C-alpha cells in the first residue's frame, strides 16, 4: 500500500512536471503570461484526436502535426494579441485568459465529452513495481518528463536563445541593449510553451480522456507548480512537482479524494503569501509586494 502510493506519487509528480513545463517556459522563464495554456493543451489533444480518428492519419503524424499547430497558434496569439499589451502584465493575463476561455467553451459547446475522446497509449502493457501494477505509459511519462526537464535546463542555460528567454524576464530593456530582439524571443517563448503543452497532451491524455474542464485543471496545476517552484527556475519545477505530486497522492490515499485539489490550491496560496517568487525563484522584492 505504502510502496504503491510512493510509486504512484512519483508518477503523479512527473505528470505535474510535464504539464507545467510549457507554462514555466513562457511565464516562469521569459515572463510572458500565457493563461491560454490549458486551452492550448486541450485544443492540441482534440486536434490530435480529429486527425487520428476522422482523417485516419497514423498516431505519430497526428501527434507531430498537433504539436506544430500548437506552436503556430502560440506564435500567432503573441503576434496579434499579446504584442499589443506587452509589458502590462494584467492586460496580458486578461487577454490570454479570455482567449483560453473562448477556446475551452467552444469545445464544451461542441459537447466532445466521453470515453471515446482519448488518445492511444504507446504500449498497452503493465509491469509490477513494488506491489503495484504500473502500465508502461506511466513509466514513459516519467522518462519523458525527466528528459524534457533536462533538455529545458540545458536550453535555458547553454543556448543563446535560451539565455535570451531568461534575459527578457530579468530586464527587458537591458536585454534590448544586448541586441536581443525581445519581440522575437517572446514570440518564440509563447510558441515553445504551446508546443510543450501539445507534447504533454500527447503523452498524458492517453491515461484519461479529453474534456474541456481539463483545460482549467491543467492551467491551475501548471500555475501551482510554477508558483511554488519559483518563477525563473527549472529546478524549482522539479521540486514543486514532487512536493505537490506526493502531497496530492498521499491526501488522496489517506484523507480523501475531495481534498487533493485543496492541497495544491492551499500550497499556492501559502507560497504566494509568504514568498511570491517561489521556493527557488529569484526574488524581486519590490515588484512583488510593497
Amino acid at each position, binding site marked *: 500500500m505504502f510502496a504503491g502510493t510512493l510509486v504512484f506519487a512519483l508518477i503523479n509528480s512527473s505528470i505535474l512536471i510535464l504539464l507545467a513545463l510549457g507554462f514555466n517556459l513562457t511565464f516562469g522563464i521569459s515572463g510572458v*503570461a500565457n493563461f491560454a495554456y490549458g486551452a492550448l493543451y486541450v485544443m492540441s489533444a482534440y486536434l490530435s484526436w480529429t486527425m487520428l480518428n476522422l482523417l485516419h492519419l497514423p498516431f505519430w503524424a497526428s501527434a507531430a502535426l498537433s504539436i506544430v499547430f500548437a506552436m503556430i497558434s502560440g506564435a500567432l496569439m503573441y503576434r496579434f*494579441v499579446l504584442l*499589443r*499589451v506587452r509589458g502590462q*502584465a*494584467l*492586460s496580458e*493575463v*486578461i*487577454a490570454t*485568459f*479570455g*482567449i*483560453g*476561455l*473562448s477556446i475551452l*467553451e*467552444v469545445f*464544451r*459547446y461542441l459537447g466532445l465529452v466521453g470515453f471515446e475522446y482519448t488518445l492511444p497509449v504507446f504500449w498497452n502493457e503493465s509491469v509490477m513495481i513494488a506491489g503495484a501494477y504500473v502500465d508502461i505509459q506511466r513509466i514513459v511519462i516519467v522518462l519523458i518528463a525527466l528528459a524534457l526537464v533536462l533538455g529545458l535546463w540545458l536550453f535555458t542555460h547553454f543556448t543563446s536563445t535560451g539565455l535570451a528567454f531568461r534575459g527578457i524576464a530579468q530586464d527587458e530593456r537591458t536585454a534590448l541593449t544586448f541586441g536581443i530582439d525581445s519581440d522575437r524571443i517572446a514570440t518564440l517563448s509563447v510558441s515553445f510553451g504551446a508546443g510543450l503543452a501539445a507534447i504533454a497532451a500527447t503523452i498524458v491524455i492517453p491515461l484519461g480522456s479529453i474534456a474541456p474542464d481539463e483545460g482549467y485543471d491543467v492551467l*491551475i496545476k501548471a*500555475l501551482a507548480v510554477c*508558483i511554488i517552484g519559483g518563477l525563473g527556475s527549472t529546478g524549482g519545477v522539479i521540486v514543486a512537482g514532487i512536493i505537490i505530486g506526493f502531497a496530492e497522492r498521499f491526501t488522496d490515499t489517506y484523507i*480523501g479524494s*475531495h*481534498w487533493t*485539489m*485543496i492541497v495544491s*490550491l*492551499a500550497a*499556492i*496560496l501559502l507560497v*504566494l*503569501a509568504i514568498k*511570491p517568487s517561489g521556493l527557488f525563484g529569484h526574488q524581486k522584492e*519590490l*515588484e*512583488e*509586494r*510593497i
Partner: protein
Amino acid sequence: MKKRRERIDRGIKVRSEDVYALVSWREMLYLAGPRLLPAAAFLLLPFFLGPYWQKVMISVAVFALLAISWDMLAQTGIISLGQALFFGMGAYVSGILNIYFGMPPWITIPIATVSGGAICTLILRPVLRLRGIYFSMVTLIVPLMLVRIIEATKIFGGTEGLSGMTPLPSTRVEIYLVTVVLLGVLFGLRRLMETDYGLVLKGIRDNDRSVTNAGINIYWFKTQALFIASTIGAFAGAFMTHVYMFVGMPVFALDYSILPMAAAVVGGGGTFAGATLGAVILVPMSEALRGIGGLRIVMYGLFLVVFTVAIPEGLFDYIQRKYHQMERWVEIDQ
C-alpha cells in the same frame, strides 16, 4: 448671415475638466443630462417591462454592482480575478442567517452585506501586500478553493446547497431595492473618488511607493478600498440569495468573476459609469442570446480580448469624449 460651428462645452468648462461656469438652464442641462437620464431610466423602466425583462433588469443591476466593485479595486491598483468571492460570501452569510437562524431578509441582507465584506477583507488582508499579478492569482484561487472545501466538508448543504430562503415581498420591491442601491453606490463612489481620499487611492494605483514616501499608510487605505469593494459585492450576493431563494456552490462560479470583469473592461474602467454601462450592454445581450447557451461565455471571452487589446479605454470614455465634442451652429458677429 454667416455661421460657424462652436463646441457646446467651451463656455461651460472655463478652466479645467471639472470647473464649470453655468449661466443658463440649458447649460445646466448639458451637465446634468448624462447623469439624470440613466438614473431616471433605471427608476422608470420597471413600469414598462414585462415580468421576464424585470428579472433581467435585476441581473443587470447585480452585475453592475459587481462590476463597480471590480472597478473600485482596479482604481486602487488591485486587479481582482475573483469577484465571485465577494458575491458568494454575501450569498452564503445571508442564506445561513435566514435558514439556520430564521432571520427575515431585511435583517439578513444588511448583516450579510457588512459581515460578508468584513470576512472577505480579513481573508485577503494577509496577501494585500502583494502587487499586481500576484494578488490577482490569489483572488483567482480563493473562490475555487472555497468551492472545493464546501464540496469536501459538506458544510452548509455541501454540493446540494441551501434552498427555501424567504423571498422578498414582490418583484417591484426587489427591483427598487437593488436599483436604489446601485444608483447610490454609483454616484456615491464617483463622488468619493473625486475627494482627497479618492486621490490617495488613485495615487496608490499610479505609484504606491511615492504615496508611501508621502507618509501615508497605503496598507490601511488598500484595506479600506478592499472593504468597500467587497461590501458592494457581498450586498449583490446577499440580495440574489433572496431572489433565487437558493444558495450553493454556483455562487462561487467563474461567471460571477468573468462577467463583471468583462463589463468593466467593455464599459471602461476608472469611472464606475463605464462598469455600469458594460453591465447594461452585456447582461441583456447575454439574455437575448440565451439560445446559444455555452457560447455566451465564448462571447465574453472574446469581448475581454478585443476590448483589452483594441479599445483599452472602453466604451464610456469614447462616448464621454464625443459628448464633450458636440458642436452647434452660431452666427458670426460682423
